[in-house]
């Protein structure tokens, strides 16, 4: 856990965002306390606190005095919107640039996407 190249607090924030996105953490659901998080993952509480503070600033989490941290209402929607927005800039854009570099015709890319989309689309509907 948390073996990636980014600073650990960034990785912690990513993990919580991913859990919210996947619906594993529902809105208004309480997240682990800094202490619980620190002892569970054997991480310095300050590092965990830094991750949580960042998520509060982003509006993913909010603090309730004396109770703890909770997933903010609309957090999932906001994360989805943001990820959708970034998807084209950060994922698809570079992929298409690479395709250009390699001389893959746009038609092939489109055909590939249609092919794979179809299979995942049906999967999602079932």
């Amino acid at each position: 856990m948390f073996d990636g190249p980014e600073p650990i607090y960034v990785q912690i924030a990513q993990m919580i965002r991913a859990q919210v996105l996947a619906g594993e953490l529902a809105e208004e659901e309480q997240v682990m306390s800094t202490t619980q998080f620190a002892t569970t993952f054997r991480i310095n509480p300050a590092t965990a606190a830094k991750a949580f503070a960042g998520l509060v600033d982003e509006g993913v989490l909010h603090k309730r005095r004396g109770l703890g941290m909770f997933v903010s209402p609309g957090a999932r929607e906001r994360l989805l919107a943001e990820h959708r927005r970034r998807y084209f800039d950060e994922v698809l854009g570079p992929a298409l640039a690479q395709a250009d570099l390699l001389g893959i015709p746009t038609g092939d890319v489109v055909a590939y996407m249609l092919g794979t989309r179809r299979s995942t689309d049906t999967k999602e509907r079932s």
Partner: protein
Amino acid sequence: MSAPLPVTAGPTADERAALARAARRRASRTVRRNVVAAFATVGGWFWAIYAVVGVGVPLLVSRAGGEMDGGIFESSAGTPRWFAFVLGIIVPAAALTLHLAAGGTRAAFSAGVVRGAALAGLGFGVLTAAYVSGEQVLYPALGLDWGRAAGLAAGSPAADALLTVVAEALAVTTYVLCGAAIAVGYKRLGVWTGTGFILPMLVLIALTDLAMRGGVGGLVLSNVARSDGIASAGAVALGLAGGLLALALAAGALHLLVRGVRLRPST
């Protein structure tokens, strides 16, 4: 942003001084208690055995129709003192590392050892006086001679007993402190210098023996001088002063040695 730490203000200078005093008191009290507890248990066994021998031997001798010259106490030449000396080597120094690791200061350690040794000495003094008084009663009852050549004497049996308590307390305390100083000396000075340090400690032991006419030194002195103890008030006072001096020097030596002890990393 880091973890929310409750900001506790540190104590003021006055509060720190009070806390330091409390810490020193706790530490020296613990050392004292440790020393006293060891003497109470191990010393208790020693005195039980000593009493059995002290009563058993004259009983056997009188049954066999033999004669005895003086009592066991005097002829054993200060066995309780040497026993206290050995305990002094073993007991206090064993806890020194633990004491420092538990946050005690060196000064609190030596203060605790001195107090513990004084209490142990007092206990030995009282037991010695009781034992000697016991011999004094037992021997004539068995038809044996009893006399005491060494020691300070004041004339009346009660005063003699009191003097025995005081003199033996001073002596045993000094023996314990010298033992403790020798043990700490090895820790502090290493094997060679530590061994060399035994000598001045034996000098202090000789001083307490000779000044108060007790132990091996007292026995030797009484044999050489053929004096029946010393009974003049001035001589008694001088003897006690010598005993006090020996004790003070032993305590000072222990304190100086302990004060410089450093625990080096084991690697």
